[in-house]
């Protein structure tokens, strides 16, 4: 029986490790990063994953060994102990040191992303989140929001490639989460606040945008696309949208 339980723990370790090995090939992993800071975030993510993997295997493996070793039939009386300062100190300092190291490691990446949040220039677009839709408001010709030539479009956020894009996030009702996995960008959208975030995409393409805060019954379908295009295409699209915004209604049959 005790061997069986120990083997089950072993199987758990094997299954978890196996899932990590096969995940990228089955699309269970994050999509390839297309953002300038995505590489740094991936490095941190992988480091933390490795640390956690070692801790996980060590803990579960230790547990398995204790189950196997501690439940054998024996005639020796159990030993009563009360605390071991050296062991507890080591345990506390090793774990604390590990967490401190991780905290220091992420500091520079965090600062590089967060410090430039406000100073990254004027927002290119205002993201308007509402149950259960993403809408994007562009400032139009004058580059200023809340003027007559602003235009709005749902679903698709179009941005130029190889440029720092600052976005302003607003919510009309509840907390939403603006998450673009390919950009490694995740920012909560809070009602009553206009938060900014930035990214710089280096590969043109169409990427998923999803809501990561359970915002209500339609949360699961609150999806959109981020379309990264060349500067020329972006300008052409911007021009076309502005023209469509000023339409006199004759363009559609």
């Amino acid at each position, binding site marked *: 029986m005790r061997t069986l339980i120990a083997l089950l723990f072993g199987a758990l370790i094997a299954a978890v490790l196996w899932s990590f090995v096969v995940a990228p090939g089955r699309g269970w992993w994050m999509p390839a990063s297309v953002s300038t800071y995505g590489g740094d975030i991936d490095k941190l993510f992988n480091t933390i994953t490795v640390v956690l993997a070692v801790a996980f295997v060590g803990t579960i493996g230790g547990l398995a060994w204790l189950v196997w070793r501690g439940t054998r039939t024996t005639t020796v009386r159990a030993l009563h102990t009360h605390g071991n300062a050296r062991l507890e100190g080591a345990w506390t300092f090793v774990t604390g040191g590990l967490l401190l190291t991780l905290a220091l490691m992420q500091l520079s990446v965090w600062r590089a992303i967060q410090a430039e949040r406000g100073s990254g220039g004027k927002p290119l677009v205002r993201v308007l989140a509402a149950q259960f*839709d993403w809408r994007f408001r562009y400032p139009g010709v004058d580059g200023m929001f809340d*003027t007559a030539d602003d235009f709005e479009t749902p679903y698709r956020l179009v941005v130029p490639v190889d440029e720092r894009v600052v976005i302003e996030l607003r919510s009309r009702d509840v907390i939403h989460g603006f998450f673009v996995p390919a950009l490694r960008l995740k920012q909560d959208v809070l009602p009553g606040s206009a938060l900014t975030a930035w990214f710089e995409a280096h590969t043109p393409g169409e990427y998923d945008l999803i809501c990561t805060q359970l915002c209500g019954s339609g949360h699961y379908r609150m999806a959109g696309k981020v379309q990264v295009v060349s500067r020329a295409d972006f300008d052409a699209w911007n021009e076309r949208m502005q023209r469509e915004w000023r339409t*006199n*209604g004759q363009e559609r049959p």
Partner: protein
Amino acid sequence: MFRPTIRERRARTPALQRATAAAAALCLCVACGFEPGPAPLEFSLSGATQSALEDAPAVRDQIARELTTLFGTPSQPAYAPHPAWDAAGVDLNQPDASAGAPYPGLAAAAETYRRECLHCHGVEGGGDGPSAFGLTPAPRDVRLGIFKYTALKDQSRPRRADILHTLEQGIAGTSMPNFQRLAPAVRESLADYVRYLAIRGEVESALVLTWREEEELSPEAVGEALTFVWSRWAKAPSKLVVYEGEVPAASKERIARGDALFHDPLKGNCASCHGTSGAGDGPAAWKIGVDGQREPAYSDAWGRPIRPRDLREGLFHGGSRPIDIYRRIYAGIPGGPMPALGETMKDGEPLLSSEEMWCLVHYVRSLSLREGP
């Protein structure tokens, strides 16, 4: 005294647990009416029909039968052959799809509708799906054939392009999201299915009306009801509101003139409902109810209290492009008290010129913009 040994207890428990778990699961399945796979859907008669024909179950059954003959069922939706469709010059069961895209057809559209729309809009499009409870504004009941946000005048039935526009843009400020994640051809078929549900609902109430007037439902009367309903849909393409020429720019002068027209009781008279500041608190739109509370003075075509839009929020259900607001002012909003100012005449002259309506458009838009008055 009998006491089971530990070994005996161990041996007995798993079987007992297994039996209990199985029984609990069975109870759960029976209680929830769970069956593997979706059950086929069926159209029901609307609440209005059922209460109107409460004392005439035979007529109720006849109307249900006629509707099934004319429109099929949710799993096999199809228009029966009828002269009205031939007159349209299109096969409603196989409408033109956009170039190159394979058109899914009504049956596939019904499946898409079931997955994407039914939970709010209901099986018959009555706006009474399971998730509709508590939504403000309530999901559209399409069975009246009234669609509020179209590009058309004269309270017209919508074109496919109008329904498609709503599917593409959603309705900002409501629970209606956009459906751009569906392929264009799928959206087209969905728009056709919405039209199908609306026509079916309109024919249903037309049949009830016919029976009330003639106290019988002859095959000719059924055909006439269908022809009448379709004639309203067939007119839609000729009802498009467009503006000849370039949309006038939002200048300070136009906004100021729009401000004056908005508040002028003999011109726009918008402030009477939308309020002096555009907050939707005008005296004409509100009354004091029996309980002494302020409540909306008007009801919409669906019998719900309707309040004027707060124009300062910049959330325009029919779209916030200048042309969208122009169309709302020109053609009004079907199903509600918003009048069609573009069609209103005074002393043989139009009440407002196009230029004056554009001034109103820019004033209304400016209320939510920084160049506001």
